[in-house]
């Protein structure tokens, strides 16, 4: 996983609330056995007609993803299924952070494991971000704050362990594997308890 410390980029704003994982990546694309290449399928049904032709009015077809790393989206973003394909698709499309007033639990946990930072902000900040799409925003994970223009920095919270992993660019499996002796002891204690 790439480390993520500070990110400055233009925002892309999708104001709709409850953007669920079926919108982020429709289920029919879940037959893949890879984690890569899903950016082309991100928000597919918003971006393409039934015959596969791109919708020119779809904002996601018009922007340069490399210049829009920050997605600002409506409340309860990422609700729905546990599919990790959702953060895979968003990351592969080009996003590195999602800002909303609330973000679903499982999506948050999946996103953090894939270099996509979920940032929850208050309503006033969100309203301002939405009122000024395309503005340059800095998301500073080391300082845990979001900065833009001459506004006061807005603090945000990230689960401390996931934050450290993201800052260091390491995944959590290695850390969990280091606990193997404790896991063995737990299993052993249980077997004797049952016997």
């Amino acid at each position, binding site marked *: 996983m790439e480390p993520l410390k500070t990110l400055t980029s233009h925002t892309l704003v999708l104001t709709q609330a409850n953007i669920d994982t079926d919108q982020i990546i429709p289920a029919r694309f879940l037959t893949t056995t890879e984690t890569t290449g899903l950016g082309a399928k991100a928000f597919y049904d918003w971006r393409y007609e039934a015959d596969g032709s791109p919708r020119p009015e779809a904002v996601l077809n018009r922007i340069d993803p490399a210049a829009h790393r920050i997605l600002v989206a409506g409340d309860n973003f990422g609700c729905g299924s*546990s*599919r990790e394909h959702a953060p895979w698709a968003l990351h592969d499309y080009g996003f590195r952070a999602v800002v909303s007033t609330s973000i679903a639990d499982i999506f948050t*946990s999946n996103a953090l494991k894939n270099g996509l930072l979920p940032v929850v902000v208050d309503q006033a900040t969100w309203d301002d971000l939405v009122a000024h799409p395309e503005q340059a925003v800095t998301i500073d994970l080391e300082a845990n704050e979001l900065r833009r223009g001459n506004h006061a920095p807005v603090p945000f919270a990230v689960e401390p362990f996931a934050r450290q992993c993201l800052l260091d660019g390491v995944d959590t499996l290695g850390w969990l594997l280091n606990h193997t002796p404790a896991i063995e002891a737990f299993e052993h204690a249980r077997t004797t308890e049952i016997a």
Partner: protein
Amino acid sequence: MTSARTLYEKVWSRHVVVAETEATPGVMYVDLHLVHEVTSPQAFTEIEARGRTVRRPDRTFATLDHSTPTLPAVDGERPYVTAEARSQVERLEANCARHGIDLAGWGSPDRGVVHVMGPELGLTQPGMTVVCGDSHTATHGAFGALAFGIGTSEVGHVLATQCLLQRRSRTMRVTVDGTLAPGVSGKDVALAVIAELGFGGGTGFVIEYAGQAVRSLDMEGRMTLCNMSIEAGARAGMIAPDAVTIDWLRGRKHVPHGAAYEALATEWLALASDAGAVFDQEIVLDGSAIRPMATWGTTPDAGAPIGSPVPQPRSDSDRKALAYMGFEAGGTTTTQAVDVVFIGSCTNGRLPDLRAAAEVLRGRKVDPRVRMLVVPGSEAVRRDAEAEGLHHVFTEAGAEWRIPGCSMCIAMNGDVVGPGQLAVSTSNRNFEGRQGKGARTILASPATAAASAIAGVLTDPRVYLGEVVDA
């Protein structure tokens, strides 16, 4: 300071391998890991790339359900929707064979939708921790297990270590008091609870369902209720084990038998939340006021009693949902022609669900303009239903009787609702496009789905059950 503990706290504390600190989450042991073809291939790839094996294949069980065809094989050929769907299934078969994991695959009498299969085989037991790469894992909480959905990275964590990194959740008790009216099912209770909590209202919580109306549900109804916890944002839903739980599990394939079972049952009863246990939030609903429910929008919380007017939109999202569904605020959802009726899924694909639908359909016909699909949740459900002749009731009424799988719930196996078509579905999600691009979904109970198939419009099942319709 009280020592009274909730059901959640009792189950959680028994599975803490390493306690959490401010800087690090806890390590939680997983008793049962259920695996299916869609969210597992990348996890196997990941652990193999690290030279790891599956730590506890004996605690890991797999099935084929999401991308599997529900039409039988012809000349030995399964009608997969795409070559990719076939290769995903073959990947799971190979992964299970390589790692010594029990797979309820093609031809297995145990195969079924993952959350139907686990309880049915007695793999799911009270007090366990159960995880699966699927957000409806909360279903298993009906047995007093702590069960929740995980992402594919975490599937890899559990394969390699049998553990997950977790922090203790906040708890919410949802008490549904009173006696449910005739014709009101677990699905109606679930839709009423979600409408009350709101789509994100359970975020960050583990819900415990309690109260007389919840107790009065059979295990299948309790599973339906817990299944939909995620539709209020909660990761898990739980119900304390009682005599209903214990009777239901007795004699199942993976539970001990005889005295050993009865001893275990005594332990299970002790899992119930202690009197005086404190929850972070409490919600109380009057169960006797719940009526057959259906959704009008594109989120599962947009539900209302059938026949009540469509509510006024409170946000742009509501307006967008109404436009997508083709319903008008103040209007009705019961006059628009229904194109498709789907009965099945891990929410409502169990035997009592099929019985409830058959009771409505018996001796009646599906409106010829409606396509009705009945998909049993597992091979066991299919066998039992066929032994009772339920499949004849469905086919004679004009419905299709399929082989088990997720089917139109997620619409990734080729069973889809067409663009613009209106479906009444017993599944759990009415998101835009969930049942196919442009498909419009009304969520409802099996009895409601069957009644709607007959009438050709969304219909309160009590019309056909000889009950007074007072909505």
